[in-house]
């Protein structure tokens, strides 16, 4: 059909010569140009390509920072200040990188909630979804280690608190991991050195996983707001120019927000204590992680100090979970449930638009996450502890109780026959297949 023409540049002699030997050009044409995309994607679908662009921005600014940064406890803080004061446009590069980390998480969290709302994790996109969760984990590790690099008070104490968590793992494994992370017996110069090395490495690992993520995406194509499969050419558009221009417009809006932070509130999302050089002898009044970790931090702290749980296993005998271990398990569990989400939510309908009950629970869950974020920032005392615990229990209940139950009890609304039908107001070419809830590929 005419709307899926190959681009003219494929006919260029040199392009054809190269393409015959290494088909990069037909690959690009196929995946970025003709690539058929559902015609009804809304703006929530902009955040995937935005995340990719932010990743590139982080790598470019990060490599530039690394040219001026010194990973030594004696010099790290001052080298960052040198970047801020003496390196040409160093303040700009650092503020882009610093705020870029926060923007990256904003974009990724929106991207994830988009997936939750429209059921994008369901068949046949489970692996795509799981690769996304891997990217989230890698991003967290990268951001955590990056935050240590300027060697301010929060860098140091955040690193101390978080690395210490691993010591909760029993059988001596935890202590072994902690020593390995530290490169010694406390957070010190070797820790800073290995964190810098890993902080440089991990973004490139992320690039690798992103490639797999997009590969998996392109096998079945994007999900869409009504969550039914595309049924033919009338349901799709070539990626270029339709979605390239839409993504560019979204990028423009994003850059405006990003620039407002960089130029007018560059330290808004940071913590003032990180402008105090690290001092092992003076503990800050409140050690708070970066905002994007707060919900997980709240889950970590939700486990009561006197908590003791037990578990009998065939191989290991009786294991005792003390509070610290239980907290760590809960925190990692909060991400682990995302991994298995496609098998917890067995409802055959993807999009919330046709799931009247799930839609409500989605929003309750989103509010729950915001509440967790608040509780992570507030001191763990009084009523905040109680709220933190309730919100933590609800977080897990959403995945482990609500979703499996909904799949059984919810009466979903009737699905449209095809994408083009609602988009074209019923005038679309009737697609052959009758409305099946979701085709299993």
């Amino acid at each position, binding site marked *: 059909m005419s709307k899926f023409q190959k681009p003219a540049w494929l006919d260029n002699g040199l392009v054809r010569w190269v393409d015959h030997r290494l088909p990069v050009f037909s690959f690009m044409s196929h995946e970025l140009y003709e690539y058929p995309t559902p015609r009804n994607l809304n703006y929530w679908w902009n955040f995937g390509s935005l995340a990719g662009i932010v990743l590139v921005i982080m790598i470019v600014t990060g490599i530039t920072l690394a040219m001026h940064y010194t990973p030594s406890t004696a010099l790290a803080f001052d080298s960052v200040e040198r970047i801020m*004061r003496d390196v040409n446009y160093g303040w*700009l590069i650092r503020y882009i990188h610093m705020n870029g980390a926060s923007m990256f998480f*904003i974009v990724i969290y929106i991207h994830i909630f988009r997936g939750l709302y429209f059921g994008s994790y369901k068949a046949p996109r489970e692996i795509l979804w799981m690769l996304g969760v891997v990217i989230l984990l890698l991003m967290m590790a990268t951001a955590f280690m990056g935050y240590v690099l300027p060697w301010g008070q929060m860098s140091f104490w955040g690193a101390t608190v978080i690395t210490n968590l691993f010591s909760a793992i029993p059988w001596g494994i935890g202590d072994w991991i902690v020593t390995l992370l530290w490169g010694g017996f406390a957070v010190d110069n070797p820790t800073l050195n290995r964190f810098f090395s890993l902080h440089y490495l991990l973004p490139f690992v992320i690039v690798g996983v992103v490639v797999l993520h997009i590969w998996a995406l392109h096998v079945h194509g994007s999900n869409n707001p009504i969550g039914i499969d595309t049924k033919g050419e009338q349901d799709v558009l070539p990626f270029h120019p339709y979605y390239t221009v839409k993504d560019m417009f979204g990028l423009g809006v994003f*850059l*405006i927000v990003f620039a407002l932070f960089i130029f*007018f509130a560059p330290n808004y999302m940071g913590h003032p204590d990180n402008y*105090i050089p690290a001092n092992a002898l003076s503990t800050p009044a409140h050690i708070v992680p970066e905002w994007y970790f707060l919900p997980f931090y709240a889950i970590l702290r939700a486990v009561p100090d006197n908590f003791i749980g037990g578990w009998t296993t065939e191989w290991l005998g009786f294991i005792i979970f003390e509070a610290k271990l239980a907290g760590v398990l809960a925190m990692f569990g909060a991400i682990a449930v995302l991994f298995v989400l496609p098998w917890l939510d067995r409802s055959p309908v993807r999009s919330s638009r046709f799931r009247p009950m799930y839609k409500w629970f989605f929003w309750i869950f989103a509010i729950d996450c915001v509440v967790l974020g608040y509780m992570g*920032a507030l001191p763990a005392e009084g009523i905040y502890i109680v709220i933190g615990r309730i919100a933590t229990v609800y977080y897990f209940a959403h995945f482990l109780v609500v979703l499996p139950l909904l799949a059984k009890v919810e009466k979903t609304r009737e699905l449209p026959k095809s994408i083009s039908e609602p988009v074209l107001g019923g005038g679309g070419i009737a697609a052959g297949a009758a409305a099946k809830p979701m085709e299993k590929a």
Partner: protein
Amino acid sequence: MNAIRTLLAAACVALLATPVVAAGGGKEAPARQWAHSGLFGTFDRAALRRGARVYMEVCSACHGLRLVAYRNLMEIGFSENEVKKISAEKEVPAEPNDDGEVELRPALPADKFVSPFNNENAARAANGGAYPPDLSLIVKARPGGADYLHALLTGYKDEAPAGVTVPEGMNYNEYFAGNMIAMAAPLSEEAVEYADGTKATVEQMSEDVSVFLAWAAEPELEERKRMGIKVILFLLVLTGLLYVVKRRIWADVH
């Protein structure tokens, strides 16, 4: 457009959702309008000059400014000769001479501000065990920034509230975390003589030194905001154009 509206709403929610945790104990500093606040803010030049005087004549007895170089003063209107005179009043270790001895030489404009004490222990020994922090980044390192600094310097109370005993060597300050601060009120009426004839009240000096230290912490502030305005204007136009292009291209789809 509906989707965009939702997006913007979501962004606002995310912003509001960032809770601010104040350091425990001190009163929150009232927010002030500084010449350098706001989108178009620039530092008040006269205040910067006066504030530099206050720092050099009062605060520098106890507090360093080790990230700022003397030559940086030229960025806020000091002449080269003035800067040379200021730096030459301090001494720094020279390169080892031919006999390998390290002598002292007058500081040059390229040197960083010389700190009053050689190390933390010396600073503590001279201050009854308390440590006067370096002031290069103090405005960025405290919630409230310059507002806090100004409130701190003017927040001393001769009489602590009933029932509160102020230990020996401590002073009562409304805004300091925990209220007991080892620094005695550093400013008193006419502590410095201003060259521009401004009356050196405690309020005036406190404002001026807060502006000076805000500059010391963020010397890029003016350039940053100026560039920011241009970048935002450029992005607004670009995004507007992209929106028009997007509408055109999608015209045949909707």
